[in-house]
């Protein structure tokens, strides 16, 4: 009888402690995960566009206010692209760091030409991209060709 009573007391003391552990553990895990995410974000390269970085640093309310100025379709498009950019793997982020400043250094007219060319290249298979770039090399300056090659994933 005494033995059973002892077991009952031990169980009665242990159960709340286990239950508490079960409550605390997910919270601790969540905090740890948040810390890891924060550390990972800090390690990540910033996006090379200061306007976008400024936007990403805004509070959710300010972001919402700013996005509300866009049409619903445009807003959706921007949000999707932003989300894609935020989840970009490190190597592609690094690629952007190289390409975007060079792209922004182009004159607006040439920037537009490069935009159009990239849009066309995106619709082609790698082999076709290479061929198109080789055929159209005369239409672009060396700086523009470098951007196109990097974006097309066809370094010289």
């Amino acid at each position, binding site marked *: 009888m005494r033995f059973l009573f002892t077991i009952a007391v031990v169980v009665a003391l242990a159960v709340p402690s286990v239950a508490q552990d079960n409550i605390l553990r997910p919270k601790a895990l969540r905090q740890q995960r948040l810390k890891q995410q924060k550390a990972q974000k800090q390690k990540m390269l910033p996006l090379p566009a200061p306007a976008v970085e400024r936007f990403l640093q805004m509070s959710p309310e300010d972001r919402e206010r700013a996005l509300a100025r866009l049409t619903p379709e445009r807003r959706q498009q*921007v949000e999707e692209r932003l989300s894609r950019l935020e989840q970009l793997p490190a190597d592609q982020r690094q*690629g952007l760091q190289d390409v975007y400043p060079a792209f922004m250094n182009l004159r607006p007219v040439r920037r537009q030409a490069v935009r159009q060319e*990239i849009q066309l290249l995106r619709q082609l298979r790698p082999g076709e991209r290479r061929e198109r770039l080789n055929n159209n090399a005369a239409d672009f300056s060396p700086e523009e060709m470098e951007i196109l090659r990097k974006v097309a994933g066809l370094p010289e």
Partner: protein
Amino acid sequence: MICLSRNEQGAELLASYLARTLDTAARAELDGHFETCTDCRGLVSVWERLDEFKAPEVTPGFDARLYARIAAGEARVSAWRRWLWPPVAPVAAAVALAALVLFIRPPDAAKQSSLTSNNAEIELVAQAVDDLDLLIPLADTRDR
């Protein structure tokens, strides 16, 4: 028009009248006009009184003493004031002008400007997002 205040050559006519270099006919015409025009009469009387004004004689050596005092005053101006003062005036003028432009603006204009700037800012962000997305280097498998 003979009236001095309405004549383009009024100042010259007045000067000639006061210097007594006008011909008799013109002088007589002006005298006749002054009898009826109180403005011209007042103008002429002021100038005549100014002509009559005689500055009091200055004491001997006045000029020398004056220039000596000016020179002494200039010497007292400390070096920092001499260095600082000339740039301060244009800077102060620029600040005043900036304040005028920034603050003395109709509230609607300021609001409109802020609204436009916010719209421009989000458009800038959206364009940059488009460009960044477009420039993401294509992996062989990442064709969209």
